[in-house]
């Protein structure tokens, strides 16, 4: 196992490449990815777990598994759920330091802003930030 953050991103870019920029297909594909996310614990759909700055509701939680972090996410809209699933796939199972220091180049490469618009782009940024904040929190916990 254990692909690096960079490798997972490259894999995603390749997958989206097959869709050849067809917006409808891309959206369907994104929603399909969202449907494959593991079920989110309903009890965790609390106000605290909502990512602030997203237009749709996005819930995000994280847990530590050894020195690796696992993320869980859900959203009330299918497309956003698909988008957050990409981040979950990239960051889950990675080390806190790698997450914090990672550079995400895949959104630009798959033309993210073209199919989510600026408002959702902002929300996407908020999700990334929240995931990095979790990593930061766990990092200080590990180091204690």
């Amino acid at each position: 196992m254990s692909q690096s953050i960079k490798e997972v991103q490259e894999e995603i870019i390749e997958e989206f490449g097959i869709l050849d920029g067809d917006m409808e297909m891309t959206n369907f594909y994104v929603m399909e990815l969202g449907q494959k996310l593991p079920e989110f614990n309903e009890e965790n759909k609390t106000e605290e777990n909502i990512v602030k700055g997203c237009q749709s509701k996005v819930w995000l939680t994280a847990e530590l598994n050894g020195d690796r972090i696992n993320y869980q996410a859900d959203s009330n809209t299918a497309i956003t759920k698909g988008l957050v699933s990409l981040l979950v796939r990239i960051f889950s199972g990675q080390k806190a330091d790698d997450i914090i220091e990672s550079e995400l180049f895949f959104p630009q490469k798959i033309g993210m802003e073209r199919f989510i618009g600026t408002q959702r782009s902002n929300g996407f940024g908020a999700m990334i930030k929240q995931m990095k904040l979790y990593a930061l929190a766990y990092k200080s916990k590990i180091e204690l």
Partner: protein
Amino acid sequence: MADVSNINGINVEAIRTQFPVLDQMVNGKPLAYFDNAATNQKPTSVIKALEQYYEGYNANIHRGIHTLAEKATKAFEDTRTTLGKFINAAEPEEIIFTKGTTESINLVAATFGRKFISNGDEIIISGLEHHSNIVPWQLVAEENGAKIRVIDVLDNGTLDIRQFKSLLSSKTKLVAVNHASNSLGTINPIDEIIALAHEVGAKVLIDGAQATAHLDIDVQALDCDFYALSAHKCYGPTGTGALYGKRELLEAMPPYQGGGEMIKDVSFEKTTYNDIPYKFEAGTPNIGDVIAFKSALDFITEVGKSNIAAHENDLLQYAREKALQIPGLRIIGDSDNKLSVLSFIVEGIHPFDIGQMLDASGIAVRTGHHCTQPLMERFKIEGTVRASFAVYNTKVEIDRMIESLHRIVKFLK
């Protein structure tokens, strides 16, 4: 396209050529623009009018004596006259240019509201209102202790007139309702509402943002006291609109903003105000857009409002029938008397996803609460998908939307 030509006295193909923006691909598909209730597109005549003004006679109005200033002033005042006729105001001076509906309502709230509404008085609005016709009244109420009462909305999206009657009393100073709802399309019985309000001595403000381009408006026959509208929802430019007010009311109201143009004489001891409409038009107005607004009104008049209404209604009925065949689709606001607005939800699918998917197919709709959060709460929904049609839309475009909706529903259910 046999279905679009010369139906209801209009030639949609010919009309479409007057709207350059329609001729483009969005996400690889031809644009179908169904967000007309938010703002509709502009015909070439409007775009040309703007160009001609800035290229030919840009000047500040009312003050200069040079030729360009004269020309600009005349064109500006021509729009006032044309708009006055368009809504059948008794005289052009009853038309005040503003930034649009929102500013028109705020103007009345800040002037009429401050002077004629006080502690213990009541303002009646409806559950169908846009935030623009809610918040200005809340500000008045907060300041002077007046109370806001709300007309209930029935399940089909119409107003509960019986309950409205029970709200009316000698305490009612103002009734502020929309002519037609932006979220649902419901056309309200404003003639009845105005007459009932007048019986208790209340004044009536009509928010005509949605209605102006679609319905015949005769402010004298309606006997409304104020009528607010936006140019950009009438095929005109953004950034301008108007407030109609009855002369005696406008004269009795204090000015809105202080500045140039709105004064007769200024001294540090005492300033006397200009006559209406200038009393309410402080500062350099949005000259170019006001001038171009006339071309938009001319466009509507030339095509014919009743022709436009018939075509739009045809589109609505067509879309409604097809939409109802989509599994799980529910129309929100299904009054018999509606503008061409199709607001709907699909069970189990978030409106955002539908809007996003339609956009992927080049189809522009609006999703969300449409600035009517209390109304969404009334229906216990977060928002709707809203397709609103204009003179240039076609059944072929509607077919594309319906096909796309079928694909989405099939995928997500």
